[in-house]
């Protein structure tokens, strides 16, 4: 028989206002095995924990039931307190009387009754608890970073700097991500390439970092400390070792009509290409959808001009199997498709562009060589209208996003400012709903756009853009003046909402990492563990977790690296103590449990047993690797004989809870 102590927490008034804590403590004090009960304002406080510790010692308790907030909040706190008082930390059970009782009920009588029942269930379970010890598993000292944008680059560099090996998997032919497409960065206006490309070179030169560019993660198995990842290296049709990146092939290729995705389709590239001059790795790639040789078997120009002999039309995808201790997700973002926003005439006029397209048009390495020209006729626009919040902050029933994309206010201020600086004869209008500029030197930056550069900020929204006689007639409201405006603009720039990259959803499934309804990865705790996924060993870097600008992304990337380093620095990880374990005498050796184990934790061995009838028998029985078992319990239900059970959530414990609740 256990000697149980019951501790009822008031949680200030959070519990005590709706639940009669004294009545709960007294009622539970009458339960069999309960030798001590107490209530206190804040059980999780140091004083509260001391009360638990003292009671354990003074009353020789074998276990404690804490009636308090959710075990997801303070289970660990109370387990540590119990351990400090000398009993096994798994001899603690929590009755959740806050989130699942006091906070959802108003009637004190029924809430108190329910709290007592929940307490009884915890006591009933605790009677069947046994001390548990967690096993250990080794840590593979290498990290995988998925995504080679600025987030992935920074995380990889920081991890490598701490002395650990890192692999970056990037689906594009080069690392660099969105930042490599951007012209200048706010709020300092330094050139993106000037601060990004040195980091890309650092990555390339690091002995600790391997880059798998033009590659994708295909499968992930294993668990924290021991992930097995299959990486598909897509065929480039160019030998990575031999290619020198001279670029001759990209000049001679006769197939010139390939949309240049790096420039967002604003110009064209060849079928063999290097996305941009500073690409890392600087290796040519053949676009199999357009290459005449690959499609018809006739051409071979690139092969002829390549002095290194690097062209290999027969190259195939290869799949690598690699081991990692930690995985960082840095899959980034994309602007949303604007096909559903044709009131802004995005698909009707080439002169209605997205902000990212504007970046390419103003970038010195872009399709216009950095001169601001209209895509339709190559003329200088003299009147530009920027429209904010296109697809952001919507109500969720339409085609847009419910969240604020966070970066648009600042980059639009940047675009407006740069336009006015370079082309003072251009009138710039920015239609905004709110200007959101929290951040160091951000609001000052926006004010400069208004005050020093004379950008017209108009509070109101554009209702309709009509292409008319080479102009874009912009009808909008000016809410402050109370006017409807009609502006004959030359160029309209839409601040499209950003969304997580489409590859994130299938990746999350592979990683068993959770996502929110917008397909952003969920963090383990929104405030206190913002760079970790709830799935152990999975870390989040950059916009895959939520919209972010570059400074924030880099900060999060480094924070993420610190968490990874902390993990890789350990030689062993403490495993889950609540693992499955077979009763060998009951096991039929039927192999059913093995088939439902997602971790391959179950194997079978033939063992000699002394049977109750005193004979000996060699029997096939299941065996669980406690370092691999994550404790889901799928096997326990699959097992017909009831031989397989789960520590911490045993059949009898759960049934005891059922009995206590249904009594």
């Amino acid at each position, binding site marked *: 028989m256990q000697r149980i102590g019951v501790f009822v927490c008031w949680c200030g008034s959070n519990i005590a206002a709706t639940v009669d804590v004294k009545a709960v403590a007294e009622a539970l004090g009458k339960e069999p095995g309960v030798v001590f009960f107490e209530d206190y304002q804040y059980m999780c406080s140091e004083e509260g924990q001391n009360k638990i510790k003292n009671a354990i010692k003074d009353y020789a308790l074998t276990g404690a039931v804490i009636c308090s907030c959710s075990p997801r909040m303070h289970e660990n706190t109370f387990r540590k307190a119990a351990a400090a008082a000398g009993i096994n930390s798994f001899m603690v059970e929590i009755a959740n009387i806050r989130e699942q009782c006091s906070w959802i009920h108003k009637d004190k009588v029924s809430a108190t009754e329910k709290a007592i029942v929940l307490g009884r269930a915890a006591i009933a379970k605790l009677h069947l608890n046994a001390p548990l010890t967690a096993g250990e598993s080794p840590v593979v000292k290498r990290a995988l970073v998925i995504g080679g944008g600025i987030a992935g680059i920074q995380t990889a560099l920081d991890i490598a700097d701490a002395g650990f090996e890192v692999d970056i998997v990037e689906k594009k032919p080069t690392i660099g991500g969105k930042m490599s497409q951007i012209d200048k960065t706010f709020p300092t206006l330094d050139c993106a390439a000037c601060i990004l490309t040195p980091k890309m070179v650092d990555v390339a030169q690091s002995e600790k970092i391997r880059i798998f560019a033009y590659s994708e993660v295909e499968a992930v198995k294993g668990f924290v400390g021991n992930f097995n990842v299959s990486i598909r290296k897509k065929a480039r049709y160019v030998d990575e070792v031999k290619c020198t990146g001279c670029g001759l092939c990209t000049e001679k290729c006769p197939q010139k009509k390939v949309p240049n995705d790096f420039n967002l389709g604003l110009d064209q590239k060849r079928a063999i290409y290097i996305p941009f001059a500073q690409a890392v790795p600087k290796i040519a790639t053949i676009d199999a959808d357009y290459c005449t040789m690959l499609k018809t078997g006739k051409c071979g120009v690139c092969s002829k001009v390549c002095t290194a002999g690097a062209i290999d039309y027969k190259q195939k995808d290869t799949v690598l199997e690699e081991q990692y201790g930690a995985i960082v997700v840095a899959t980034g973002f994309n602007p949303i498709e604007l096909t559903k926003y044709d009131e802004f005439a995005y698909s009707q006029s080439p002169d209605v562009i997205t902000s990212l397209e504007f970046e390419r048009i103003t970038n010195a390495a872009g399709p216009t060589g950095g001169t601001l020209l209209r895509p339709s006729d190559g003329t200088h626009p003299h009147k530009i209208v920027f429209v904010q919040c296109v697809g952001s902050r919507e109500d969720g029933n339409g085609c847009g996003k419910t969240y604020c994309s966070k970066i648009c206010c600042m980059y639009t201020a940047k675009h407006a400012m740069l336009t006015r600086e370079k082309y003072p004869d251009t009138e710039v209008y920015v239609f905004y709903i709110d200007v959101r500029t929290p951040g160091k030197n951000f609001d000052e930056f926006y004010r400069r756009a208004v005050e020093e550069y004379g950008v017209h900020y108009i509070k*109101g*929204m554009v*209702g309709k853009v009509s292409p008319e006689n080479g102009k874009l007639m912009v009808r*909008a*409201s000016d809410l402050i003046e109370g006017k*409807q405006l009609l502006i004959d603009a030359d160029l309209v720039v839409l601040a499209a909402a950003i969304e997580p990259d489409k590859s994130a959803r299938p990746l999350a499934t592979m990683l068993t990492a959770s996502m929110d309804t917008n397909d952003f990865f969920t963090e383990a705790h929104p405030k206190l563990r913002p760079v970790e996924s709830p799935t152990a060993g999975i870390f989040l870097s950059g916009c895959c977790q939520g919209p972010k600008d570059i400074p924030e992304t880099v900060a999060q990337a480094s924070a993420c690296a610190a968490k990874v380093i902390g993990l890789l620095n350990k030689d062993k990880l403490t495993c889950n103590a609540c693992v499955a374990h077979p009763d060998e005498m009951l096991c039929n050796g039927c192999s059913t449990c093995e088939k439902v184990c997602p971790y391959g934790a179950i194997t079978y061995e033939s063992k000699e047993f002394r049977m109750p009838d005193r004979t000996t028998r060699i029997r096939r029985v299941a065996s669980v690797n406690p370092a691999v078992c994550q404790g889901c319990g799928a096997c326990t239900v699959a097992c017909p004989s009831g031989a397989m059970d789960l520590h911490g959530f045993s059949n009898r414990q759960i049934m005891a809870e059922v009995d206590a609740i249904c009594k």
Partner: protein
Amino acid sequence: MEQKNLKETVLRISGVNPRKCMKCGKCSGTCPSYDEMEFHPHQFVYMVENGEIEPLMASKSIYRCLTCFACVERCPRQVEPAKLIEAVRLTVIRQQGQNHLKPDAIPALLDEDMPQQALVTAMRKYAK
């Protein structure tokens, strides 16, 4: 009717929740009748939420909305201002003797090509 009841009436008739509005002004930016209105679509949303129904009822603006639904189509928060305007108009014409269009006034407005549709629509919009 009291202010509060008026607001409730308008909300009931329209089925609109004006609190969803984020005050972007896109409705007014797209309204074809904007210049002919004293109160503009976004103001309808704002004023209904504030319970200022009577000024709206007294305004000619309620007869300028074409129910073209441009504001409804383009509202990022699906507030549907046109339905509010229609609801204010109905609140007026449902009162005794408040028909905006009286049958004996019609012949003077017609020409021989005017389609029935215009008449039927106007009667529904302007009269009880």
